[in-house]
């Protein structure tokens, strides 16, 4: 044995690894893969479709129209000075970013079992790429929102764009991180017990009703004060309410609520990361 064999190993493969190791250097090494995954996600969505990227727009538009008819025209929810359609479109656009992040990341291990079973790369690249490619999708959907914004503006609707708008990207970032954290958490649990993927599919639908997507937050506290606290404890409700305030000038900003949201987001993200790291080493044996 020479002296070399005792110290300068490049790496070691062992049964366990550090819980919180978010190996940033390794992720940086694989940055090209991240970009290529994003590109793949974007390209393959509209290959062999006629309408192509238009599909990105059709879904929020039709959902908004339906919501406007059901919740505003039939149920009579009052959206104040803002046209109900625009109110719903804002909520849905932001909400969609969260759900697509969560949906895309929550089956990371299951959907990629084939490739994960053959090659090693930092597994977190996959959920990260989902969050980023959905950000691009969000960008496109936000553009259509802006289109209607300008349209209604010239129609004479009172829209109060305010200074808070500069913080809008941060809000979206929080949304993405929350979706990523929750997705990593669920994807780790889905590997062994598929029960969780069923939970996600209907859980997201229920969650939407608790997230102030199609009604102002104030309204629920006013109408059902007994259960209004459920919405008040939902971090997503604050994000949606705040983003509507930033974009349309309706509703309110709760600094406390935002602080609460940020803390919950960070907590979910780190717990998700912890479990994700623990799972990625052996998931291929149980998936």
């Amino acid at each position: 044995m020479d002296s070399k064999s005792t110290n300068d190993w490049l790496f070691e493969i062992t049964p366990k690894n550090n819980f919180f190791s978010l190996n940033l250097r390794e992720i940086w090494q694989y940055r090209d893969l991240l970009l290529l995954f994003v590109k793949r996600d974007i390209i393959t969505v509209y290959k062999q479709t006629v309408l192509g990227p238009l599909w990105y727009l059709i879904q929020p538009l039709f959902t908004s129209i339906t919501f406007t008819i059901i919740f505003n025209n039939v149920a009579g929810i009052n959206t104040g000075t803002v046209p109900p359609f625009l109110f719903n479109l804002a909520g849905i656009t932001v909400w969609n970013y969260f759900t697509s992040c969560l949906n895309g990341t929550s089956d990371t291990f299951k959907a990629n079992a084939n490739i994960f079973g053959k090659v090693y790369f930092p597994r977190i690249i996959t959920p990260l790429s989902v969050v980023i490619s959905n950000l691009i999708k969000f960008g496109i959907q936000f553009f259509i929102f802006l289109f209607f914004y300008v349209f209604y503006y010239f129609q004479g609707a009172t829209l109060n764009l305010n200074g808070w708008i500069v913080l809008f990207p941060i809000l979206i970032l929080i949304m993405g991180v929350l979706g990523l954290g929750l997705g990593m958490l669920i994807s780790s649990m889905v590997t062994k017990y598929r029960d969780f993927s069923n939970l996600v599919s209907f859980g997201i639908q229920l969650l939407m009703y608790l997230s102030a997507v199609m009604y102002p937050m104030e309204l629920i506290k006013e109408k059902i004060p007994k259960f209004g606290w459920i919405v008040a404890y939902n971090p997503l409700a604050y994000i949606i309410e705040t983003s509507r305030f930033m974009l349309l000038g309706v509703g309110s900003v709760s600094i406390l609520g935002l602080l609460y949201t940020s803390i919950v987001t960070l907590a979910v993200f780190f717990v998700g990361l912890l479990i994700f790291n623990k799972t990625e080493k052996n998931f291929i044996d149980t998936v």
Partner: protein
Amino acid sequence: MEKDIILKATNISKQYRLGQVGTGTLSHDINRWWHKIRGKEDPYLKIGEVNDRSTKGTSDYVWALQDINFEVERGEVLGIIGKNGAGKSTLLKILSKVTAPTTGSIKSRGRIASLLEVGTGFNGEMTGRENIYLNGAILGMTKKEISSKLDEIIEFSGCERYIDTPVKRYSSGMTVRLAFAVAAFLEPEILVVDEVLAVGDAEFQKKAIGKMQDISRGEGRTVLFVSHNMAAVKSLCTKGLVLINGTVAMGGTVEKAVNYYLSQDSESMNRKVFSKEYDKKEFILHEISLNPIGKSSEEPLDEFQEIEINVLLTLKDDIKKLHLTLVLNNDFGEALFTFSHSNNDLRLSKGVNKIKCKFPKGFLNIGTYFLSLYMIENAKSSLFVEKDIMSFAIQEGERPLGSWMGKEPGFIKPNFDWSIEVN
């Protein structure tokens, strides 16, 4: 002598749970967790059994690998051989970080890239060119590295014409070509290759083996190679590691390892000793064996050797014109040819007869063969017939590097007299 160890595995073990995931696993998980928070050992780690695929075990846990230790030097080509389920793929999965070992550790001085069943990560909707980038990045290359090698990769794959067509339109062979081409231009210090030769035509096999050669000899990189093709293992590897039921049965030079592996195979028992089965009125048959000339019948037979057949029998009386005839059958039971010592005017006499028949060098092709034995009297009636009295297998020999590693058609390869006149 100073060794330059690039990869070192110490006490690698891997446990798997058999059966399905259900409420049983949930209770095990809870029990395991309960032991863990009390600081006790995992209760299920103790109860694993040796991984023998064919026998029913008593425990739900098996050890796919158990206490694997080995070292690989820089520039070495290590062939990992073993039967299905011996743990080869599990070992490669651990090496390529796809799954973690249950116990033990692997230390490495170089990047490891794996070529596990090439073509994974290909996206059918994307073109060949896009897939080269994607696959390269999955294997750990940067975009810049890929761009600089793009032309070479495309040329090596031989899919130039299809490069801007979605991969879903490719034939399976073309996909493999493209995937191997990407991986071949990877520059890891350690390359892990699993069964690439199973697919692809002769031309491509030649190319792939040649490339692996360049990688190991030319560029001094280390290759770990798993294959069932002994010809490829023999020609390509310098060292061999034989896995049997998840443990290292032996490690050493590739010749020794391959011979060891083949001699484990019960189908290639090249010697058959009979006690009383063939104690007939006229004769007693003791033994039939095959061996390469100058070697014992323990040695495996390969396609390039001079092979002799030995028959040992005792003749009880001097029966005139009694002779031994053998028929060689292929594994479909078809007779290939009949041969006998009577053609050479040799006779059997009373007492113990040692009959030898030598095949010319490299006469038999790779495959499994069956011998039928006839005792013929007066060149017309058979005193004794035993069909398929023994079987033997001819293995792949070591072939020149860069040549094709498959099997030529046919059962025999006689060496005829050829001549070429050039005017």
